């Protein structure tokens, strides 16, 4: 799915990422663990094509998008990627249905298709009957379901989730992680950033990030 070679990122003198090498196979469920400030979010911004200012090479499906123009990048993000954020990042004045529909506004799907796709994911995440509700009328878990539905409505190849359970209690976290596991079973590749080892256990593989460096196992970090 993706291959990262010697990626580095600096903010002035501060080194956010250094010599990152990572490969993720199609259909894999990868967890990236690390404390806050370790560079997790910086790394997934690069993987999610949200940040193009880095050194090294990043190939998504064997293609580098480093020199790609902004409009085409938007299209790739819309077609191939889906994002789930820690604080849900829903549009507060829009209904559940309208939030989920956002990625479809910018894709070239027909209107009838769009409706079917939205209805389909609403069922998948178990939000039937909540279509017209505003996010503020939903619980944290339900809001994160809306965010997941929005991330998968375009049927992306890769889902990037940044602390998807960070704002949820443990029971709700389990529900959300079960949805991710189901999605992964249907072939969707997932990269998830978390600081919670219980959540990371849902993934097939976990890598660790510390002070901008990536490690394959926890022991290496402690060295």
């Amino acid at each position: 799915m993706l291959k990262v070679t010697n990626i580095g990122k600096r903010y002035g003198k501060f080194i956010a990422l250094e010599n990152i090498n990572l490969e993720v196979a199609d259909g894999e469920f990868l967890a990236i663990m690390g404390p806050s400030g370790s560079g997790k979010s910086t790394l997934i911004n690069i993987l999610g094509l949200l940040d193009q200012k880095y050194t090294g090479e990043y190939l998504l499906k064997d293609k580098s998008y480093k020199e790609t123009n902004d409009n085409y990048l938007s299209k790739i993000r819309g077609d191939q990627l889906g994002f789930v954020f820690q604080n849900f990042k829903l549009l507060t004045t829009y209904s559940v249905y309208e939030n989920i529909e956002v990625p479809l506004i910018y894709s070239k799907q027909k209107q009838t298709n769009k409706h079917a796709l939205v209805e389909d994911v609403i069922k998948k995440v178990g939000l039937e009957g909540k279509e017209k509700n505003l996010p503020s009328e939903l619980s944290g878990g339900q809001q994160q379901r809306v965010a997941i539905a929005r991330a998968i409505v375009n049927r992306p190849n890769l889902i990037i989730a940044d602390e998807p359970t960070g704002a949820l209690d443990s029971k709700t976290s389990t529900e959300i992680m079960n949805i991710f596991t189901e999605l992964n079973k249907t072939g969707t590749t997932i990269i998830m950033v978390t600081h919670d080892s219980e959540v990371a256990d849902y993934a097939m593989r976990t890598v660790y990030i510390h002070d901008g460096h990536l490690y394959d196992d926890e022991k290496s970090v402690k060295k």
Partner: protein
Amino acid sequence: MIDKIMMALKSIDKNKNRNFLTMLGIIIGIASVICILAIGDGFTHVATKGMQNHNTKNKVTLEFTASSDEDTKSGFTRNDLAVLEGIKGVDHVKLTSSNPEASVTVQHKTKKTSATLNKSPKKLKLYKGFGTKVDAGDTGNIFISKDLADRAFKGKALNKSLVINDNVFVVRGIYKIGDFEYRPDIYVSKTIFKQLFASQISQDEAKISVNPSASKKAVGKSAVNEMKKFGEDAKLGKYSISHPDQISKSFTKTLNNITYFVAFVAGISLLIAGIGVMNVMYITVSERRKEIGIRRAFGATAGDIRNQFLIESIVLCLIGGLIGILLGYGVVSIINSFLPFKAMVTTYAIIMSLSVSTGVGLVFGFIPANKAAKSPLVGLLKEE
């Protein structure tokens, strides 16, 4: 596109009060422009209507201009009339005078002065004396202007005698001439005018009625040529075609220019309204950084974001424009009950107002919309 407009309406609805206050500038600006244009158009319509009455479709006016300023007698003769009526395409011809007054010399005691003279109108308001007109058959009485009374009689003219071209008349009434009024110095009866003065007035206009099948232009041209050849006074002056429609056109143009200038001045308030729109759009953009980030992450291009805010700004201004037009319409209906003519809201004024509102939205929305489009994505996603 409809979904984008709906999206814009929704965002505008979210901050109703703020957006309404912003719109108020547009509303007042557009309403004033509508009112000014309506008054201007109404006045132009009334002012040119009179001209158009003289300018009936199938008429050509042939004019004679004497070479000498002092020559007041030459013009079209009866023979000329026959020649003109013989031209192909001419239905009939009427001879008239551009200045139907006679110039005369008047004398009171030994004092001589020149004056203009005409037949009495049907009704005249006198300043001194009795009656409202000089009767048609009256051969001895006249009315004179206060100005002439002052000049010839030092004011005391009533019931005194006045000699006009060697004929003696008695002044029975004195009238005042208003500032915007035109009247001759002396009014005589119809009979006296015909007997003594009509021959002095040259008939220097020939009003030619053209058959509907004939061309006005061609008839006018041959009339000029015929008169050059056969006109009895051809050597004393020039013949030409007058174009009253051109005069009314240039008059309309001048009036329109004045109206547009005043409307433009009112339109300056729209500039200030536009700055208000720009300000509110800046606020909107900075308030919705999170939304911009989300949309960009899920596939919106910078152009999509720019268009979203641009459409919002245009929709805001268009709503303001529409309310402004309605308000302008209302104000015009009210002022119509006070105006001596009818102010008219034309389709042109409505189309122009809508275009101006769209323009204001586009121009003043562009910079904030562009700012939204160009914000760096990573920073936007950090917003909560």
